């Protein structure tokens, strides 16, 4: 349930960052479908978590802190947020925004890039979704439910 709220919040963040299409997707996928799948899995398995005793939390915390600090060090060379002079805004994008209404004839640049300029990429993505569905069908598609090899440990 918290996960759905998290998705909704990140969707509103995407609206602030001008990515309306992405916000739309995140809201419908994250808040709608993925929460249902998560809850479905928890219902099929178990919602109780064993109290963690095997690992000490200190070692992962150390690893995470070191990695995070290294990444923060890396940000010093990245151009600042929201500056129109950033290199990402100068390669190919200007041409898409200026020419795509004439070439494609539709105003939504995201759609025209998605379906036409990057058509191969989207075909690949659709195939990945297709393959994932086949995988899920192979794994849990059958309605039969085999019992576990051993009885569930109490």
């Amino acid at each position, binding site marked *: 349930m918290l996960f759905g709220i998290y998705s909704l919040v990140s969707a509103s963040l995407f609206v602030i960052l001008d990515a309306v299409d992405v916000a739309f997707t995140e809201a419908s996928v994250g808040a709608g479908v993925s929460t249902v799948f998560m809850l479905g899995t928890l219902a099929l398995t178990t919602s109780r978590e064993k109290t963690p005793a095997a690992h000490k939390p200190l070692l992962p915390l150390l690893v995470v802190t070191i990695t995070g600090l290294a990444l923060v060090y890396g940000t010093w060379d990245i151009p600042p947020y929201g500056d129109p002079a950033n290199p990402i805004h100068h390669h190919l994008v200007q041409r898409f925004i200026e020419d795509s209404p004439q070439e494609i004839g*539709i105003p939504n640049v995201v759609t025209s890039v998605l379906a*036409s300029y990057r*058509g191969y990429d989207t*075909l690949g993505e659709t195939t990945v979704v297709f393959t994932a569905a086949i995988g899920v069908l192979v794994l849990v598609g059958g309605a039969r439910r085999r019992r576990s090899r051993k009885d569930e440990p109490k």
Partner: protein
Amino acid sequence: MKRYTIPRLGTKLLLPLILLFALYVQFHGDYGPGGGFQAGVIFGAGFILYALIYGLDHAHRLMPLWLLRIGISLGVLIYASVGLVGLLLGGNYLDYGVLDHHDPAHGQHLGILLVELGVGITVSAVMVTIFYAFAGRGR
């Protein structure tokens, strides 16, 4: 869920609107935010809501499994064959400009509409199929 009147009635009221909104998102994606991916997920979510409230058997009657399996592969097939039509008409693969000889922009528009339709069909069928797989496992 048989005894709960309010969710059942609410679903009945909401479901047509959800499906209509999905179709709007699908075909208005050229002009506003939206497109095949979003529309597919919303369409799938509508059926998932129906299956959650009314039970899996009713949902199977509404959207049978064989139809979904056809839908999953049909979407990818539409996408790939639109590209192939462009190839046969003398253009490049996935080049929609040749679909209309008089006005390449119109051809591009048509191609994008068809391709997005393919994406929408696949994504919605995949979402419902995954839900069926998980829900059918629990019984």
